[in-house]
């Protein structure tokens, strides 16, 4: 049953390339272009500048300087852009990729070695891309006795749930969030509750011993740490009186909640490490005991998807910590009010207010404003910051804080050994739950003492 690799022949090689090109072109022409046209036919397109955008107009406007900016702005403010690119999946995946790179290099420095070095010439920045290509090109092996539908579904469900978690995270002021729910925090708890189910289903469906033990461990760990996780965040909910994550951030415009809730922050950070299965709580993937835990039977891109999901989850948890305890995007506005000048020459930007043709000496910024008139209002002194300035400054603060929290999530990996299951359950059920109750009582005390809340001092 051995397969002998055929010898390299240039003719076969070229034939392969031509075959691939032929089939790709054929499929794109016969299926891709009609599919795009059908989608565009049914898609509800925005009205720009009093004119309904069509697919034809989009191509025309791309080369029309006066219409480019409205077109791109309409794209940025569409729901699709939010889900795919900025506050949603693309942004989170970018931070996740950065996290993997930083983790590797930081851990390497800690352990007196070099880390990824060659791939990508500069400090191995393309190592992740290389790893991804390798995972994609590998064969996906499924155990013979596995429950195939569940086994296939598990990685996809894992990434999907992690992405749902990311969708609930507000990134910048002005509604930059995929799903702005009034019960945002409750939705977060609901999404977190899905992870143990997916883990145990994938572990059980593999029908193998080591994944099964890993799945049981993950179930123990996640279920017993979910309770202190929820309790530790209740203190902030009591203080703010809202479950909406954006409103929780806005309530911290003068000071972050970590000043009053340090115990809650510590409990939440610890439970976060356990939910993320990171060292010292990486029991479900304990290598020396149970091979790779519930990931043992995953191969190729299935494993890659689970890893992607877990790093998305890491970003989402770090962002949740920032939103609830560190004040999210609040902070001094980075962008000082610029000395804008009205000039009459240059590329005219359409303006809903009417006649003035306005260009500002900061290229690109008017793109980010919700309303082009904000520049005029700022010029007249009616508006301190335009929404574009607030967005840029908010995102910078948010990313800085999130990266800081991620750094502290990564750090224990170089310092601590793995702990044992009974120690883990002891920490979860005795210490953390007790501490989170202390935190809730502190919050109640602050509210009833009249320090915070309606009519409070602060």
């Amino acid at each position, binding site marked *: 049953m051995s397969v002998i690799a055929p010898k390299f022949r240039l003719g076969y090689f070229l034939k392969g390339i031509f075959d691939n090109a032929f089939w790709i072109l054929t499929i794109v022409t016969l299926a891709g272009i009609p599919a795009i046209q059908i989608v565009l036919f049914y898609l509800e397109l925005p009205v720009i500048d009093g004119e309904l955008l069509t697919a034809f107009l989009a191509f025309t406007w791309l080369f029309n300087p006066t219409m480019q900016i409205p077109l791109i702005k309409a794209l940025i403010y569409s729901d699709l852009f939010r889900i795919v690119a900025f506050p949603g999946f693309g942004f989170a995946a970018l931070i996740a990729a950065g996290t993997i790179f930083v983790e590797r290099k930081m*851990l390497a420095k*800690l*352990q*007196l*070695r070099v880390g990824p070095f060659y791939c990508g010439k500069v400090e191995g920045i393309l190592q992740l891309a290389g790893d991804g290509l390798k995972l994609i090109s590998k064969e996906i092996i499924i155990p013979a006795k596995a429950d195939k539908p569940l086994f296939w579904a598990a990685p996809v469900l894992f990434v999907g749930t992690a992405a749902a978690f990311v969708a609930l995270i507000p990134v910048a002021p002005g509604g930059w969030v995929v799903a702005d729910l009034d019960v945002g925090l409750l939705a977060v708890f609901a999404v977190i509750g899905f992870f143990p189910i997916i883990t145990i289903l994938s572990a059980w469906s593999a029908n193998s*011993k*080591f994944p099964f*033990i890993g799945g049981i461990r993950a179930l123990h760990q996640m279920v017993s740490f979910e309770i202190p996780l929820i309790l530790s965040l209740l203190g902030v909910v009591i203080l703010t009186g809202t479950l909406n994550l954006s409103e929780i951030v806005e309530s911290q415009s003068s000071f972050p909640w970590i000043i009053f809730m340090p115990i809650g922050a510590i409990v939440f950070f610890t439970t976060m490490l356990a939910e993320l299965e990171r*060292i*010292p709580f*990486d*029991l479900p993937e*304990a*290598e*020396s*005991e*149970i*091979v790779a835990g519930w990931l043992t039977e995953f191969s190729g891109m299935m494993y890659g998807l689970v890893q992607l999901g877990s790093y998305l989850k890491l970003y989402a948890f770090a962002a949740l910590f920032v939103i609830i305890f560190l004040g999210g995007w609040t902070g001094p506005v980075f962008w000082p009010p610029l000395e804008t000048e009205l000039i009459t020459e240059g590329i005219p930007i359409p303006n809903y207010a009417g006649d003035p043709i306005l260009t500002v000496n900061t290229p690109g910024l008017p793109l980010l404003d919700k309303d082009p008139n904000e520049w005029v209002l700022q010029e007249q002194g009616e508006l301190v910051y335009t929404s574009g300035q607030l967005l840029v400054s908010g995102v910078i603060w948010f990313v800085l804080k999130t990266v800081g929290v991620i750094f502290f999530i990564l750090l224990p*990996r*170089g*310092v*601590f*050994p*793995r*702990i*044992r*299951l*009974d*120690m883990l359950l002891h920490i979860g059920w005795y210490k953390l739950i007790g501490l989170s109750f202390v935190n809730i009582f502190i919050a109640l005390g602050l509210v009833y003492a009249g320090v915070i809340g309606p009519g409070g001092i602060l």
Partner: protein
Amino acid sequence: MAEQVIPTKKMPPGLQVENVDDRIMTLNVGPQHPGSGHMRIIVKIDGDYIVDADPDPGYVHRGEEKMAESRNYITNIPHLERPVIHDSCNILYPYVLGVEDLVGIEVPERAKYVRVIAAELNRCIYIQYWLAIYGIFLGHSTMFMWPAGDRELLIDLMEKITGARVTHAYFIPGGVRNDVPANFEDVCLRQVNYFEKRIKEYADIFYDNPILKARTEDTGVLSREDAIRLGTTGSVLRASGVDYDLRIKEPYDVYDELDVHTNVLKSGDSYARSKIPWLDMLESCNIIRQALEKMPKSGSIRTKLKPNPKGREDEVYRRVESGRGSAGCHIISRGKPEPYRLKLSVSSFRNLIALPYLLKGEKLGNMPAVYWSLNYWPVEADR
């Protein structure tokens, strides 16, 4: 409970019928398991508790003893160090001492000191490797990288002395193969001092780590009586409170002229067993410094042997303290250039005997911590 299986006919010897309990899960930890080494442990678990553990070595058996019977005393040297290439000087030491007894030659004074230095350096190299694996078994990746990196210092030193990084084949009957390089004393002293400074830092990140202490203390406790009864040696024996070190009890070469201290801990748990080799490394640094001081600055390093030496008709048994415990070599000679029978008595196999007793009743999470704390090298046990 499943029904009891009653064999209808007589079972062939070596096979046994096992009753299957639904609560018990049998795990094959190894030989292709990241936490096993080149062996298998058949572990039966009830929930998280180990009810039975059956170590199953033999996957890397190479027949070293049989091979030794068809080679003469000199050509036996390179292959006899193969069982533990990381501790190659110490595993060869008893064989060389035994052959010197049989052939009847004296070793020059300088060669004895060079041998002690090489043996102690090699002990450190072995323990560093062992410690790295102990670190990664406990999920401590920094403790994997640090010893593996610092080990390079001493490997470079050994390369300067012997010309090979790991498999030295440096000890030969009558002395050592070649002399140390010219500025060896200075280089060795500098490297060893720096090495000692480095390994003292391991206490900060590993041995004083509260999570490590909570995990390994009071796990796999081997009492003093059990340690003696099961015949364990080396660090396992000394961690259980038995003061037994062959460098002091049966000094060979020049160990009786050096001030050797031995490290004994009383508790007998995994933590003590993991700490003893680290203390041994610090002690080795002391011994190397003393030996460098007392070593004759010049002189012969080898007594010339006849080309194909014949041992007298006798049998000898010599043993030394290796990185893992006592390593013995029993040679029976019939007056020929080859040994009639050669038996390696290694500490890995003796320490492995304690494993089933220690693992019974432990939690599954403790398995790697207990297993690797036995200072066990699978290849050496299989020989």
